[in-house]
């Protein structure tokens, strides 16, 4: 099909000839903006490209604006299971005879749904029915195996030298990334456009088992996983940021192939997708390939369901996890998400508190008081689209306790509220953020990652280049104001990992 007129929207590329003045250190940020070519295809798909020729390779990031927060209650884990299913091939990749396959896949889905419905009855389930359905399922799966070739997407990529091939699911977004030798751009477009349109959910039920093992590995066998899961479920009462991306175990065992397919149809639309391509490319040629393969994917109506809002917290929340492990502590405060100005202020606070050996937390808790093994802060947990958390996590140093560490952390936070941060400390933080930005440009994957991330979260990749300009404006008074506004006991969640021995 020919689309009427593909108008690449070249958002900026010409203005800069006038703007080009040598400004120390800020030059880099202005420059990046000019090196990025941004297009929107007719179907709403946004493509960001950047040319770099040191290595004859190219990195691709595809991001869909969908994640675990978009699942219905009782269906947690769907976004992540879908991500696994996207590696199972398409109608033209991995099939020996798609017509025949389709018939069996429908039977498998029906049997699977019936089996789950029976198993869901728990102790009232009909054991004979389960047994016969299980048998039937095994037979169907055996039949199906004859009709397809496993893992063909992986084979195609791997044989062609793919690097950094993977996908990940977040609360806000889902990402598929890969790097290839730069002469193989068409292979990427061929595979990705196809799986964005015609994925086939082969081996759904065995993959569901794999994910149950993934959960066991990351959560049940790992005390850190348990702490983090309970911490989020405590910090959030209503907003879906409270849920584990892997899904609650009881949801996971009944995840539905029908619901997963609907979820795919609803959210993997071109107008809900951003692509970043960075590396040894010719943008003109590349956009032609992208348009050839992705251009005909129809735009869809995006009627996303409302997301439950979190209410303001009105008192401290605490949760303890007993485990066979040494103590660990997480403290978190609710705060607004980017691009709120206060989020930038927290980026600065993060540096002041825990960046480097001269940061306040390290100096005080690790060096001087010698009560912690390590202490970090992270601004923007667990997602970035909705108001999120400023998180402090620490490991006490034996025989010191989490309670001692918590008290010292609180003292440092009080200092932020009562004493003005020195100009030198503020300058240091800004230098660090500025340098971080430049370092983040070092690799193609890093760049493709950032461009697509900020475009999908904030709606404009230029968030990255503007970030530093806004950071420059942060004053000591801003830091004190923000500390006083958010770092309050009633806005706090404390999660403790306690050694049960």
């Amino acid at each position, binding site marked *: 099909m020919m689309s009427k007129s*593909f108008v*690449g929207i*070249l958002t900026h*590329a*010409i203005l*800069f*000839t006038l703007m080009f003045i*040598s400004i120390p250190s800020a030059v*880099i940020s202005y420059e990046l903006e*000019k*090196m990025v070519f941004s297009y929107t295809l007719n179907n709403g798909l946004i493509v960001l490209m950047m040319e*770099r020729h*040191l*290595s004859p*390779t190219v990195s691709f990031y595809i991001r869909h604006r969908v994640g675990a927060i978009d699942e219905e209650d009782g269906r947690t884990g769907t976004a992540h299971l879908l991500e696994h299913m996207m*590696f199972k091939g398409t109608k033209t990749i991995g099939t020996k005879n798609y017509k025949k396959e389709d018939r069996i896949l429908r039977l498998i889905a029906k049997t699977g749904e019936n089996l789950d419905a029976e198993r869901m009855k728990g102790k009232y389930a009909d054991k004979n029915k389960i047994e016969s359905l299980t048998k039937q399922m095994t037979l169907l799966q055996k039949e199906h195996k004859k009709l397809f070739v*496993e*893992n063909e997407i992986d*084979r*195609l*990529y*791997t044989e062609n*030298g*793919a690097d950094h091939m993977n996908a990940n699911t977040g609360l806000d977004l889902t990402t598929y990334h890969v*790097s290839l*030798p730069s002469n193989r751009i*068409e292979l990427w477009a061929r*595979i990705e456009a*196809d799986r964005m349109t015609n994925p086939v959910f082969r*081996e759904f039920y*065995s*993959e*569901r088992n*794999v994910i149950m*093992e993934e959960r*066991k*590995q990351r959560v*049940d*066998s*790992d*005390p850190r996983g348990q702490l983090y899961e309970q911490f989020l479920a405590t910090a959030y009462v209503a907003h879906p940021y409270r849920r584990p991306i892997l899904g609650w175990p009881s949801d996971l065992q009944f995840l539905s192939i029908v619901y997963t397919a609907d979820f795919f149809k609803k959210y993997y639309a071109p107008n809900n997708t951003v692509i970043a391509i960075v590396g040894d490319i010719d943008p*003109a040629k590349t*956009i*032609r390939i992208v*348009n*050839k*393969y992705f251009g*005909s994917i129809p735009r869809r109506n995006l009627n996303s369901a409302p997301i439950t809002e979190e209410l303001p917290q009105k008192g401290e929340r605490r949760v303890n996890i007993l485990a*066979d*492990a040494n103590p660990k502590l997480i403290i978190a405060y609710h705060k607004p998400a980017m691009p709120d100005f206060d989020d930038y202020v927290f980026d600065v606070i993060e540096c002041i508190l825990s960046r*480097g050996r*001269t940061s306040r937390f390290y100096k005080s808790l690790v060096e001087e008081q*010698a009560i912690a093994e390590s202490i970090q802060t992270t601004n923007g947990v667990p997602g970035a689209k909705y108001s999120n958390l400023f998180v402090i996590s620490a490991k006490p140093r*034996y025989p010191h306790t989490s309670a001692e560490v918590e008290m010292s952390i609180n003292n440092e936070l009080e200092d932020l509220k009562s004493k003005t941060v020195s100009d*030198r400390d503020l300058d240091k933080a800004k*230098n*660090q953020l500025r340098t971080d930005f*430049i370092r983040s*440009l070092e*690799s193609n994957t890093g760049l493709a990652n950032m461009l697509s991330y900020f475009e999908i979260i904030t709606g404009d990749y230029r968030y990255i280049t503007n970030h530093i300009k806004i950071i420059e404006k942060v004053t000591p008074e801003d830091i004190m104001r923000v500390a006083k506004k958010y770092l309050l006991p009633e806005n706090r969640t404390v999660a403790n990992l306690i050694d049960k021995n």
Partner: protein
Amino acid sequence: MNKFIYRVLHLVLLYFLLSSTIACATETTSISKLPDPDTLHYQPDRFIPPLAQRVVIDNGIILYIFEDHELPIVNISAVIRTGSNYDPIRKEGLAELTATAMRTGGTNSMSATAVDEALDFFAGSISVSMNRDSGSFNLSVLKKDLDEGLNIFSQVLTNPAFEQNKIRLAKDLKIEEVRRVADDPQKLAFREFKKLLYDNTPAGRFPTIASIKNIQRDDLVQFYNMFYYPGNLMIAVTGDISKQEAINKIKEHFGSWNKANVHYDIPHIPTKSKGHIYFLSKNIPQSIIITAQFAPGKRDLDAYPFEVLDFIVGSGGFRSLIFREVRNNLGLAYSTGSFYTKKSEYGVFGAYAVVKSEATVKALSLIRSVIKDLRNSMIDKKEIERAIKSINNNFIFSFLSAKQIAYQQLMIEYEHLPRDYLAAYRDNIAQVSAKDVQRIAVKYLSADESVTLIVGNEETYKQMLTTFKNVLRVESKL
């Protein structure tokens, strides 16, 4: 300034190019016409590995330089011929503590606090890492901070002060780290596994709380004096710096460092192991299986067929044999596969799986039979060709950044590999045949030599005993 102007012109040209071609970029493809992805045509790849420049300065320091002026960053890595394999018995952890205290314990011209203040203020970083048979110090700074950064970096390497209180801090933090090893079942499993595989030789000894407590400042100074001297040092300089400037700067900061070479014995690592199944009890709902044995090292031509073998067995992605059996077909594990780590003189090949407890025996048996089959039957020629194609097409990803290019070439010299190691690599892989793979499987993969460790719960132990004789219980001592 010039380079920016160049870029501006370049982009303007590109813009016109785009605007004229956009009109024709209207073709889209519908699914019925999608080409077969196996027959897509690609421009030929004429990749020749880029070469860093090698320079030796008067006092014996070897430099590798690779320029890349895209970003105003300079990276410098110093690699020292040392390693934790040189830790004295009962002082395990000394190599690492020495490096950490060099970085954190100040220099003879700057206090520890002054070093940290300076680096943090301009956001420069000096990181250290200590491996079994090498150590490295890495400086990363913006071009404008190069002089200040390099000054500190050179002082850290040539004039460390080893402030007593920073040694105490480094020891205390290491002790806490060791105390916490068992919190992470996988970390615990690999640590205990290496102890068993290397059987109380240097590579099988780990820092313990007692060994760290045993280490004093004098030990650090002595260790430093033994290993840190110009003839034992190689430096990679990369990024926004010219070759001449790099040479001048290194000469300026390291040129007057004169310290005679010291003789020390290279620790012996055995390359044979006695096969056995070991069990370490931990109350987790899964089992961690690790099984491995010795394999050819990088300097051995057998390493090439072995790499192909490893790819097919378990590191070549979803299609690899172990992944397909254990994860794909049976859904027993999320993480599973094989690994082949190579040193210059020897390698280790093994397989791992994190499986549901009740499937421990099954998974281990599957892995063992996959490996046994390699000895008994030849792998399909097509699979070999696929593996070769994959490995060779992926080769260019070893040259992504200036840092990687120079560091890699430095390490080739460090490991005494042939000069043309990289240039010949793809040809060496391309020559591998199914026969070679079977030959090396027979040569290296004997079941009696494979060391296996299972970390799992008590139920799993009972299950193991029903199938395997002589499962030896081990305890972890931290």
